[in-house]
Every structure is written in C-alpha cells, then in structure tokens.
C-alpha cells in the first residue's frame, strides 16, 4: 500500500516536471539539432531517463538545470552519432520558418538568407565556443547555470562567449565579403 502511494507520488512529480519543462527542453534540443522530430525524440528520451532515476528525484537541487543538462548531453551525443541528413538542409528549412513578422515577401527572403548564413557560421565555430554561444541565446539561463550545464567555471563561460562572438563577427564578415 505504501509502495503504491509512493509510486503514485513519483508519477505526479514526473507529470509536473513534464508540464513545466518539456517546452524548454524541446527548445534546447531544437537549437542544437535544428529538426523538430529529433528534438522531440530527445525530450522523450530525457524524461525516460528521469523516470529511471525517479527515486533520486528528491535529491536534485536545481531540477531545471539538471533536466537541461540531461537533454543537452543527449542532443550532443545524438548529433555526433547520427548524421542521416545533411546539416544544410535542416538549416535552410529552419531559416524559412524563423519568425519574420511584418515583412514583405522580399524582406522575408532576405531574412531567411541571413538566418541561414548565421546558422552556418555557428556550425563552423569550435565546439566549446559554439556550445556557450547557443546556450547564451536562452535568456532564461544565467552564466552560472550555463557553467553548471557544461560543467565548467563561470569565468570559462565568459571567456568562451567573448571568443565566440569575435569569431562569429569575423566569420559573418568574411561570408558577406565573399558573396
């Protein structure tokens, strides 16, 4: 009886986690994978891992950072292992669906091209700098939280972000000059 009650409580806690964090985890996964189906798979897998370790859920201090770290490791692993589609296809698709409200058709096309350029340059960045830059785009994450997700110090996050921005500026400038 007590066991059943305990399980029921665990299920409720898990359902609450899904309601609260599923969307955010999806966005984190999507920002790396650039594909809706893959991002949703990663979220499903992340919550299955949480289910496997649900008995230790009460030990976790910051559940949001903990969940992001799980999904972050999953998506990085998936990106390294599975290369079924060409990255450029995903980027082009993504650039077309990015919000560009109140723009004419011509400006919309220019915006899509610009987004595609940026995303291609991001992919060219070194892994460490790219990771910090992608996570810094999530405004709800502080540098301390990014450091906790990546398992580095806060000062490392700042220095990597500085390098990433400089590199991005150089890459974008070079891309525009060459076109």
């Amino acid at each position, binding site marked *: 009886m007590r066991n059943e009650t305990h399980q029921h409580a665990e299920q409720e806690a898990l359902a609450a986690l899904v309601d609260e964090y599923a969307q955010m985890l999806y966005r984190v996964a999507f920002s790396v994978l650039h594909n809706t189906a893959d991002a949703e798979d990663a979220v499903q897998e992340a919550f*299955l891992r949480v*289910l496997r370790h649900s008995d230790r859920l009460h030990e976790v201090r910051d559940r949001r950072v903990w969940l992001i770290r799980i999904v972050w490791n999953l998506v990085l692993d998936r990106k390294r292992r599975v290369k079924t589609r060409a990255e450029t296809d995903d980027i082009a698709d993504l650039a077309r*669906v990015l919000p560009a409200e109140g723009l004419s058709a011509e400006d919309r096309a220019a915006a899509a091209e610009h987004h595609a350029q940026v995303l291609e*340059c991001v992919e060219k960045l070194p892994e460490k700098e790219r990771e910090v830059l992608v996570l810094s785009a999530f405004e709800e994450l502080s540098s301390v939280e990014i450091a906790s997700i990546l398992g580095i110090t806060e000062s490392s996050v700042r220095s990597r972000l500085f390098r990433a921005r400089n590199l991005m500026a150089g890459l974008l400038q070079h891309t*525009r000059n060459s076109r």
Partner: protein
Amino acid sequence: MKEPIPFRQPGKVSNPAQEALATLRAVAQMPAAKGLEERVKANLTRNLARNLAQNLAQKSAQKLPAGLPDVEAELDAGARGWMHSATLRGLSAAAIVLIVVGGGWGAARYGRRQATPQAVGMPRMAAPGEFSNSGAMRTPQTLTQPKVPKAKHEAQAAEKRSSKAKNGKRRKSKPTNAPTNKRSGNAPKDGTRARR
C-alpha cells in the same frame, strides 16, 4: 514565453555578433509542436506500465519455494538448448566430474598390479626366407681390467733376465772385427757422440 525578436536588415546592425545572437534567440524561442506534453506523458505511462509488468513477473518468479525448480522455465530453456537450463548444466557438470574421478580411481586401483613373468624370452629364430642373425649374440659390456703394479724384487729379477738375454744375443751376433764403441779420430772434439 517571450515575444519573438523582430528581424532587422543585416546591413542596419553594426555588430555582426549581435545579428548572430538575434538569430540564435529566434531559434531558441521556436515553440514545440502542439501536444508535446501529452505525448511525453503517454510515453512515460507506457514505459511505467511495462516496468510494472516486468517487476511483477520477477516477483512471481522469486515467490517459488526454495529448492523446487521452476519446471516450466526449465522446459522452456531445455527447448532452446541445454546450455540455457541451469539444471541441465549442473547435471552435465556432475557427469563430467564423475567420469574424471572414476577414471582416476580406476587407475589407482588396478594400475599398480605388477605383471609376473610367464615365460623365458628366447632369441627369435629366423623363419625360412628371412634374414638370420648369423649366430651373432649381443655381449654385455664388461669393466676394464684394473692394472696391478708388480712387486719390486720381481721387477728387478725380470730386468736382469732380460739384460742377460740381450748380452748373450749380442756376443753371438757381433763379428770380431766390428768397430768398438771407442772414440774414433773422426769424432768431434767437443765431447758429443758421433751419430751412427
């Protein structure tokens, strides 16, 4: 969720890094397809039910009284191959042990008995048409005979006998005008004997 960042023309923004960040923020704000939470919960429920069923099956298997083998499981394992059944594996191991121990005991029990000679071995006679050994027999190697030194007085007597015999022979064989063993005039003056 926050409002999406409005797009600006690339040329109008001075800092390219800011442009990049704007794009990344736009990506980070992309909403998920509708019903994500429901799909995740449904998947979790399915997995939970499967885990519960597995746990129940394990518990029911553990409830069997100790010492009694699970007959159905054994039969099923036996059908898949004897290596899958713990009982059959145990039986085969016991059979191997019995064979090894029995063999060792048999060797110890009967192997020590010494064979008594039943007949005297004789050299084989060659059958007609075969090569014979021509009567050759193997002789065993003997020890070398020890040399015993002769007694002193016996040795002196034997020496005298031999010298007498030599002198007697010389007198008879030597001619009268044979040159003596004296020094001749041609002999070297330094005292050395002339060579014959």
